[in-house]
């Protein structure tokens, strides 16, 4: 069931997830389109998230934006594309390549005492190699050490890839097309911004064969949402994910269709990274337990990093 409507206010609106925004020319959403998008959100009872560009909007836009409850991505939620010296926002996103995440692990660790919540987005998951497993594990361990100290001193900073799984008892993923939908400045719906970027840059469309062009929209504000095969966006139609307990995994369907060509099937890279994080959270949980913290949601020990490798046992 849809819960969130994200409105890209401009073609250059900030990228806040895996995919970079390759669009460099400003195209501000027309005021009338914005009005229709807000109306759609209100009628469908959706929480609205505005995705901001890096410039200030005119007053008439601000007035319309403030006419409804919302979150401002790129304003309230600050997005960083490199590790900052300091984070003051309560809620921030840090987008990094895997190599940068590993290289800057100590710089990130320094930030942890400052944050309420930091979402880590790895921007090149598709390039991850099994040879990087050990390095990624080490980086997670570095961050765990600081998180443990913070917990011991009474702080509870949230670092998405390491602390979310402490609480989660079921999958909590990006929900593109299922719980979230995007409106782009052209007034069309997309499953997530990455599909809009692909369309705008002419990347070949494997999502909807009825459009041999790069068209990636799933409806528009005039005619409503028209998601083809919406059942395939649900967890119960994802054979690997539905038996997986790396609940913090993003389950990025854009990466799925890019790497496995099927929107409900995660790649090896996504599964391995999610399981390294899951297992690191398990380590953190055990250390918290040893330090006297109560554990209600025990994470079990498993012997695999990719559920695909043990699918015969768990199917």
């Amino acid at each position: 069931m849809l819960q969130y409507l994200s409105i890209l206010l401009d073609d250059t609106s900030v990228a806040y997830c895996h995919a970079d925004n390759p669009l460099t020319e400003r195209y501000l959403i027309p005021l009338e389109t914005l009005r229709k998008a807000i109306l759609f959100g209100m009628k469908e009872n959706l929480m609205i998230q505005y995705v901001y560009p890096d410039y200030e909007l005119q007053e008439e836009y601000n007035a319309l934006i403030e006419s409804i409850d919302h979150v401002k991505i790129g304003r309230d939620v600050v997005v960083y594309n490199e590790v900052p010296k300091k984070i003051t926002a309560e809620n921030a996103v840090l987008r990094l390549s895997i190599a940068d995440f590993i290289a800057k692990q100590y710089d990130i660790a320094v930030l942890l005492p400052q944050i309420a919540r930091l979402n880590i987005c790895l921007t090149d998951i598709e390039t991850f190699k099994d040879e990087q497993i050990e390095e990624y594990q080490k980086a997670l361990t570095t961050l765990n050490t600081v998180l443990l100290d913070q917990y011991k001193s009474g702080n509870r900073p949230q670092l998405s890839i390491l602390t979310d799984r402490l609480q989660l008892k079921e999958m909590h993923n990006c929900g593109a097309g299922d719980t979230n939908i995007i409106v782009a400045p052209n007034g069309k719906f997309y499953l997530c911004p990455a599909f809009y970027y692909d369309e705008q840059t002419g990347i070949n469309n494997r999502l909807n064969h009825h459009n041999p062009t790069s068209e990636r929209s799933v409806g528009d504000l005039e005619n409503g949402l028209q998601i083809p095969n919406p059942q395939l966006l649900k967890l119960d139609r994802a054979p690997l994910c539905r038996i997986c307990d790396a609940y913090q995994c993003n389950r990025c369907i854009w990466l799925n269709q890019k790497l496995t060509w099927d929107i409900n099937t995660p790649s090896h890279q996504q599964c391995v990274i999610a399981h390294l994080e899951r297992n690191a959270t398990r380590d953190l949980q055990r250390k918290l337990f040893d330090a006297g913290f109560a554990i209600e949601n025990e994470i079990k020990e498993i012997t695999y990093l990719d559920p695909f490798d043990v699918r015969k046992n768990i199917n």
Partner: protein
Amino acid sequence: MKDEGLVVREGNKGWQEGRAKNITFIVTKDCQLACKYCYLVGKNVQERMSWEIAKAAIDFVLNREDDPDFDYPSVIWDFIGGEPFLEIDLIEKICDYIKTELFSRNHRWFNSYRFSFSTNGINYDSEKVQRFIEKNKEHLSIGITIDGTQRKHDLNRVYKNSERGSYADVARNIPLWLEQFPGAGTKVTISSADIPYICESVLHLYKLGIRQVNINCVFEDVWSEDDDKLFEDQLILLADAIIDEDLYRGYSCSFFQEHLGHPMDCVYDNQNWCGAGKMLAVDAAGNFYPCTRFAQYSLRDKEAWIIGNIRDGIDKNKLRPFLTLDRCTQSTLECVNCEVAQGCAWCQGENFDAAKTHTVFERSTAICKMHKARVRANNYYWNKLYRKLEKS
């Protein structure tokens, strides 16, 4: 089933069923025929496999002894087209090389392999094909496709660039084929136009000496409004003939199966229908596919699902959807809850081609009413046969 010496012939199971890796060489995309129901929409004379590509593909496969995806006790080397025997010189070279390599590598597949062919039978009696058969007969499976009576066969199986039927050119080779492969079965395809000739065709094939008739409706959405009723009528006629003439003792027709048309469970009965993704197909360009139905010449609306090539290997991410497929995940709720689901087949390639999105997880249901008609006729068949066997 067996009943005091009265044996009802069952269809042959495939060689080493489920225990053999299937490697398919698409040696050519050309064929002498242009069968009207053929799903190969992109046949052409240009895409013929070269020896260099074939050899590289064999080396690629045989170098994967430690790869779990190739960890099978046996192998079936499948040759398809178009018409594979158009490339008999290449095929002979491929088979010679495979045998030599299996021996010299002391490979586990040495002496546990089959060369498999599905041919239109037109040049079956040629000197080159016969020499090949003689040389490899201990390791061969060859199926000739003959569609039934001449009028049914020639309705669809015509020469390209003409409407001339191919029946006579195929039928003359049937005795030689049956002499060399006495237990062989033929594959019959049913489309809308030839429903009226099903009964006469199966009986005709029995008269030709073919004891196993593997027959199926095309999976494409070709069916007209009353085709299911006509189909059911034909199967009832066929059931009467098989039972009344005691043909069930020595002949089989895959339309009639004892365990068919029951509800299915999503936990205990959830396997995928076919082996797409477990098999490996290679074409003239050296590209790999999860099955031949994902090569471009098989697809109307979709781009080919290429999973790799002989130079770069297999991108295993592209295989993950196939290897995690199960019945219920790809089925509609109507299919999941269907009272007669058992035996309802699908083709993964056709599912993909007909799907609304780029997925193998959307099952085509074009065949639904034909399956239900088959189930009704099948029930009739077994009820009548049981009654007869009880009385005898």
